[in-house]
C-alpha cells in the first residue's frame, strides 16, 4: 500500500547483483555526439516532508533515505537524454523539510523564484495546504506518493495530479482477481490508524461493487511492539489464531498501511487460507519483482543509479518527473499553463512500462493505469482482469469513474 517499503531489499539486491553478467570486452567508445547547450530549462522542484524513521519489522524492511527521490533522479536523466536532442534541459531542485512549516516555506520560496512544476512527497493534509497557497494557483503539483481517496474526491484540487493508484483502484484490482478466482468470501482485518480505516473502507466498497462477501470484518488491536520480546512470536501466533477462529472464508485481507501486523498473519491463522492486501497478494503500482513490458530496463537503470531496488515511491517520483518531461517535450514549451493543460488533455501519454499508455483522468486528476498484483517474490496477475470492460478505458474499471466522482475541481 502507499507507504509500503519494498520487501526483502537485501535479498533482491543480491539477486540483481548476481544477474549482472560478465561484460564483453569493449572497444574504445566513439566520439560522443556534441550536445548543444539547452535553449531552455524546466526547473522541477521535489517538495518533500522528511520521512519519520519507522521501526521496521526486521533488517529486511529498512527504507532507504532517498526512497522516492532516487526515482526522480533517474527520470530526470531520462528527460535530459531526450531533451538534449531538442535543446531542452531539465533540472531537479530538492526541497525536503523536516516539518510542515518548513515545507510551506520552501514552496513559497520556490514559487517566488518562478518555479511552477512540483513533484510532491507529502501527506494528504499537508498536500492540500500546499495546493491551496494563493501563489500556487498557476503551478502543477504532481503527487508522487499518496493513495488517498479523499484527495481524488472532495479534496481534489485543480492544480494537483496523482500518479500512484488510489486505494479504491488497488482494492478494485484485488477484488477483480478474487472474482476471477471465485474466492468470494473475505475476512477483512483492519488496523486502527486513520489510514488503515480508509483502506478498509476502500476494500468494503470494492467488495460490494464486485459482489464479494465480507464474512467477517474485524479490527486488529494487538500491540505490534510485543512481537519484539524474545518469545513474541508465540503471542502473535495465539492472537492471530484467536482472531481468525470461528470464521470460514476464502482469503484474509489486511488493511494495514504502516506494516504493523499484516506480515504476521500468514501461516498463523486458524484455517489455511491465503493473505492479501497489505501482505501476501498486494495490489501495487511497482515492485522489484515486476519485469514485464520492458520494466527490466527501468529496474536495471534504477539499480545502476541508486544501488538498490526500486520501490513504489521511487516509481511514483519517476512517473511524476517523466510526466513533466513528456509535457515539455511534446509541447516544446515550458509555459506552466501550456504544460498543465497538456498533462490533463487527451494527447498526453505516459509510457511507464505497463504495456499501455497512461493518462490522467480529467475528472479527478488520477493517472489511470493497470495495477500489479504481486507477492513478495513474484508477479501474480495484473488488473483490470480480462472481461472487466469499460466504454472508454478498461483501466477505468479500477477506482472511481466519472459518474461516481465526488471531485468538483476548483
Amino acid at each position: 500500500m502507499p507507504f509500503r517499503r519494498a520487501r526483502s531489499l537485501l535479498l533482491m539486491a543480491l539477486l540483481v547483483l548476481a544477474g549482472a553478467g560478465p561484460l564483453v570486452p569493449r572497444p574504445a567508445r566513439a566520439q560522443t555526439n556534441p550536445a548543444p547547450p539547452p535553449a531552455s530549462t524546466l526547473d522541477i522542484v521535489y517538495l518533500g516532508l522528511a520521512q519519520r524513521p519507522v521501526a521496521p519489522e526486521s533488517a529486511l524492511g529498512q527504507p532507504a533515505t532517498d526512497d522516492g527521490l532516487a526515482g526522480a533522479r533517474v527520470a530526470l536523466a531520462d528527460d535530459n537524454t531526450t531533451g538534449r536532442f531538442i535543446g531542452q534541459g531539465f533540472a531537479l531542485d530538492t526541497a525536503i523539510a523536516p516539518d510542515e512549516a518548513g515545507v510551506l516555506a520552501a514552496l513559497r520560496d520556490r514559487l517566488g523564484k518562478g518555479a511552477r512544476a512540483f513533484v510532491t512527497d507529502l501527506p494528504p493534509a499537508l498536500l492540500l495546504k500546499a495546493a491551496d497557497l494563493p501563489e500556487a494557483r498557476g503551478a502543477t503539483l504532481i503527487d508522487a506518493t499518496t493513495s488517498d481517496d479523499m484527495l481524488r474526491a472532495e479534496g481534489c484540487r485543480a492544480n494537483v495530479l496523482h500518479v500512484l493508484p488510489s486505494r479504491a483502484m488497488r482494492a478494485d484490482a484485488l477484488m477483480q482477481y478474487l472474482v476471477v478466482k471465485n474466492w468470494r468470501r473475505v475476512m477483512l482485518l483492519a488496523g486502527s490508524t486513520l489510514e488503515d480505516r480508509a483502506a478498509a473502507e476502500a476494500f468494503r466498497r470494492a467488495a460490494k461493487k464486485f459482489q464479494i462477501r465480507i464474512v467477517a470484518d474485524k479490527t486488529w488491536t494487538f500491540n505490534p511492539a510485543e512481537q519484539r520480546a524474545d518469545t513474541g512470536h508465540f503471542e502473535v501466533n495465539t492472537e492471530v489464531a484467536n482472531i481468525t477462529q470461528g470464521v470460514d472464508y476464502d482469503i484474509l485481507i489486511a488493511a494495514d498501511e504502516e506494516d504493523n501486523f499484516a506480515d504476521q498473519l500468514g501461516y498463523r491463522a486458524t484455517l489455511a487460507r491465503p493473505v492479501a492486501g497489505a501482505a501476501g497478494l498486494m495490489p501495487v503500482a511497482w515492485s522489484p519483482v515486476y519485469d514485464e513490458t520492458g520494466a527490466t530496463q527501468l529496474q536495471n537503470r534504477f539499480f545502476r543509479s541508486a544501488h538498490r531496488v526500486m520501490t513504489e515511491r521511487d516509481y511514483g517520483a519517476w512517473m511524476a518527473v517523466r510526466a513533466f518531461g513528456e509535457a515539455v517535450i511534446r509541447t516544446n514549451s515550458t509555459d506552466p499553463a501550456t504544460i498543465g493543460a497538456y498533462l490533463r488533455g487527451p494527447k498526453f501519454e505516459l509510457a511507464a512500462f505497463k504495456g499501455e499508455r497512461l493518462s490522467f483522468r480529467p475528472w479527478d486528476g488520477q493517472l489511470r493505469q493497470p495495477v500489479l498484483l504481486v507477492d513478495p517474490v513474484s508477479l501474480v496477475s495484473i488488473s483490470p482482469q480480462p472481461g472487466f470492460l469499460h466504454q472508454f478505458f478498461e483501466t477505468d474499471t479500477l477506482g472511481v469513474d466519472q459518474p461516481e466522482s465526488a471531485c468538483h475541481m476548483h
Partner: protein
Amino acid sequence: MPYALTRGAAALVVVLLASVPARADHLYLSNEKDNTITVVDATSLAIVKTVAVGARPRGLLLSKDRKSLYICTSDADHIEELDLATLTVTRTLQSGPDPETFALSPDGKTLYVSNEDDNEVSVVDIAAGRIVDEIPTGVEPEGMAVSPDGKTIVNTSETTSMAHFIDAASHKMVASVLVGSRPRYAEFNKDGSLVWVSSEVGGTVSIIDTSQHKVVHTVNFAIPGVPSETIQAVGIALSEDGKWGFVALGPANRIAVVDAHSFAVEKYLLVGQRVWHMDFSFDGKTLYSANGVSNDMSVIDVAAMKVTKSVPVGHLPWGVVYGP
C-alpha cells in the same frame, strides 16, 4: 591417371549435388521462451526442425548470401550465426549487452545492434565477429534500420520516443525526430525517401521524410470493439512493389494493411494473439507473422489480403524470417 580421374569425377558429383535445389524455402521463427528456432517448410508448412540456441532469441536476419541466419540471443548477450545448410549454430558474434533487434548493411558486412540496456548502438563487423564501434543514443534503443544506399542508420529509443538518424560513415547523429511513445521498429521504403516508425504505447506509425527529418504523416488505428490502448504498433513489413505497409498491432491481434501512398488503413487482418514481427516470401506473395501469445505463425495471402492458415510453433515466437 585413374586416380586423377576418380578425383575429378568425385568433384563433379559434388558440384552436381550442390546445384540441385535440394531444399524448399523455409521460415525461421525465434521462440523467446523456449530458446529455440523453429524451422518450418514453406511449402508444406510442416515443422522441419527445432534448433536449440542461446537464451531468449528475438531479432532475426538473413545474411546477404542467404546462407546463414543471425540471431539476437538477448539474455546470452551475443549474436549467434545459424548455418542454414546444416541447421547448426556455427559461431557467435559480439553484440554488446541485451541485443534485441538489429539491421544489416546493404553490403552484408556490418550489423547495427541496439543494446537496450546500455543506451548504445553497437556496430559489428560480421567477418571479424567483433564490435568495432559503439554509438551513444537515446534511452532504451530498440528499432534499427539501414537506408537502401547504406548511408544512413535509423535507431529508435523507447523512453526517449525518438527516431535517431545516424550517418553510417562517421557514426555521428545527424537528426533526432520525436515520434509517438515507445517507438519499437523502423523500416525504410524501397527508395529510401521515407522511414516508417511504429510506436507501441502511442499506437501509431510515424512516416518520416528522410531528407527533411520530419514526420510527414501519422497513421492512426481504430478497430471497432477493440480498446484503443490495446492497439500497439510493433513490426512493420513494406511490400516489394511499394504499394502496401503491413503493421503488426500486438495485443490487438491484428495486422493493419496500410496504403503506402495515401497512408490510409485499408483493412485489419485478424491473426494470432500478440503479433510481433512479419516477413514476406521471396516472391512477395505471402506474408508470415509471429504471434507471441498464441504461439503460432499466421500465413497471409497478400493479393487476397486474407489469413489462410495458422501454424503452431514454439513458445512466445517473436521474430520470423523467410529464407532458403
